[in-house]
C-alpha cells in the first residue's frame, strides 16, 4: 500500500471520519482477517475477531501515534491481541463446548486463499520451515520466546536467532518479488 493512502487513512482516523474504516477494511482487511484466522483457526471466530478489532481500532483511533509505529504494525498488534484473547476465552469454555476441528478449519483457510495472495504464499513456502514455525509460534500462537522454546523444544538462543533471521529472510523474498514484478511490468 502506498504511503499516500496510509497517510490519508491516518488523517481520517485522527478526525474520526467514517471513511477511515472503509479504507482500512479495503486495504488491510484481508491481511488482518488472515492473521485473526491464523490465531483462532476458525472462520466464524475470525470474523468476530476482525469485527472486534475494527471497533477497537476505531475507538483508539485518536491514540494512534505514527511516530511510534507504522499503521500496519498498530493494526496488527490490535488484531493479534484481540485474536489471542478470543482464543483464550474460547479455550476457557472449551471443556464445556464442542472442540474446534482444527484440520477442517485449516482446509477452509487454504481454500480461502485467493490467487491474489499466491505470490506471498510462495514466499511463505520459500521460508524455511524452521523459521516459519518460530515466527508463527511467536506471532500467532501468542507464545513468549521462552514458551516457544519449551513448546518447540528449541533452545531460547536459537528461537531468538531464528526470529531475527526469519524476519530478515522475508525481507529478501519480498525484495526479490518486487524486483521481479518491476522487470515483468517493464517488458513490453
Amino acid at each position, binding site marked *: 500500500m502506498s504511503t499516500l493512502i496510509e497517510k490519508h487513512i491516518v488523517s481520517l482516523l485522527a478526525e474520526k471520519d467514517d471513511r477511515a474504516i472503509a479504507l482500512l477494511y479495503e486495504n488491510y482487511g484481508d491481511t488482518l*482477517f488472515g492473521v485473526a484466522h491464523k490465531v483462532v483457526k476458525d472462520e466464524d471466530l475470525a470474523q468476530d475477531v476482525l*469485527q472486534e478489532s475494527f471497533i477497537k481500532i476505531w475507538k483508539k483511533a485518536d491514540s494512534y501515534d505514527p511516530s511510534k509505529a507504522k499503521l500496519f504494525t498498530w493494526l496488527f498488534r490490535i488484531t493479534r491481541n484481540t485474536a489471542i484473547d478470543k482464543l483464550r476465552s474460547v479455550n476457557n469454555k472449551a471443556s464445556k463446548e464442542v472442540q474446534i476441528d482444527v484440520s477442517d478449519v485449516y482446509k477452509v483457510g487454504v481454500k480461502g486463499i485467493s490467487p491474489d495472495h499466491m505470490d*506471498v504464499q510462495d514466499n511463505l513456502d520459500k521460508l524455511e520451515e524452521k523459521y516459519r514455525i518460530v*515466527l508463527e509460534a511467536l506471532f500467532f500462537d501468542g507464545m513468549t520466546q521462552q514458551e516457544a522454546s519449551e513448546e518447540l523444544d528449541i533452545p531460547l538462543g536459537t528461537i531468538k536467532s531464528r526470529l531475527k533471521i526469519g524476519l530478515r529472510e*522475508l*525481507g529478501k*523474498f*519480498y525484495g526479490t518479488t518486487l524486483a521481479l514484478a518491476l522487470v515483468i511490468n517493464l517488458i513490453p
Partner: protein
Amino acid sequence: MREKINTFLASDLLEKYLLGETTKEESQQTERYIAMYPEVRGSYEELQRNLQIFAQQYAMPTPEGLKEIIISAAKKEKRHHYRFLRFAVAASVAIMLFATTSYFLWNQNKSLQEENVLVTNQIKYLESNMMNQLEDMRNQFIVLNNPDTRKVEVKGKEEGKDLKAIAYINPVKKLSYINLGKVPELPENKVFQMWAEVNGELVNLGVIKPLDDKDKLLALPYGEKAIGYITVEPKGGNKAPSVENIVANITF
C-alpha cells in the same frame, strides 16, 4: 556507543516492541534507542516492513457482508461515543454544579457554625455577667438591709478634703461596699485611686472616675482588720499607692 547499539540490537527488545509485548520501561528504553540511533531506527523500520510481509502471507479474503457489518458497527459506536460525550459533558456540568453548591453550602455551614460559637460565647458571657450583677445586687441588698452592717463615713483631707463617701461593712456576711457620694475635681494630671490592704496584701481597686453614678455602690474586698485608702496619684493611676498622698482611710 557502537557496543551499546550492538548489544541492544542483539537483544530481542526490538522484536518484542514490534509485537507490543514490552513492559513500560522496556518500551521507553526502546523508543529512546529508536529516536537516538538511526541504525536502530532502520532495523525497526525493516522489522515493521517484514512483519507486514509475513502477515500478508496469511491474508484471506474476508467473507461477504462483513465489511458492511463492521462499518455499521463502527458508525453505531461513533454515535454511542457522541452520546457518551454528551452524557459526559452533562455529567461534568452536573458535577461542577454539585461541587459549587456543596462548596457554597459547606462554606455557609462553616460561617454559621462560627457565628453559632460566637453567639454561644456571647450568651455565656452575658449570662455570667448577669449572674455577677445579680450576685452583686443581692450582696448590696444584704449589706444595705442587714442590721449588722456598719456605716462608716469617709471624709477626705488635703487635696481630697471635699471627698465624701460612705462605706458599708458587714462583718457577719463579710461584705463591704463603698458609695462615693462626692468626688472633688482634681487637676487634669491627677486622679483619685482606691486601695485596700487585706490580710497584709495590697489590692489595687482602681482609679475613681468622677463621672460615676453617685448612688453606685462599689464592692470592696472584705477582710478582718482590712484598711481602705484613697490616694491622689498621677493621671492613669499608679502601681503602688503613694503613702504621702493618702487623702482618706477606711477602717473596717
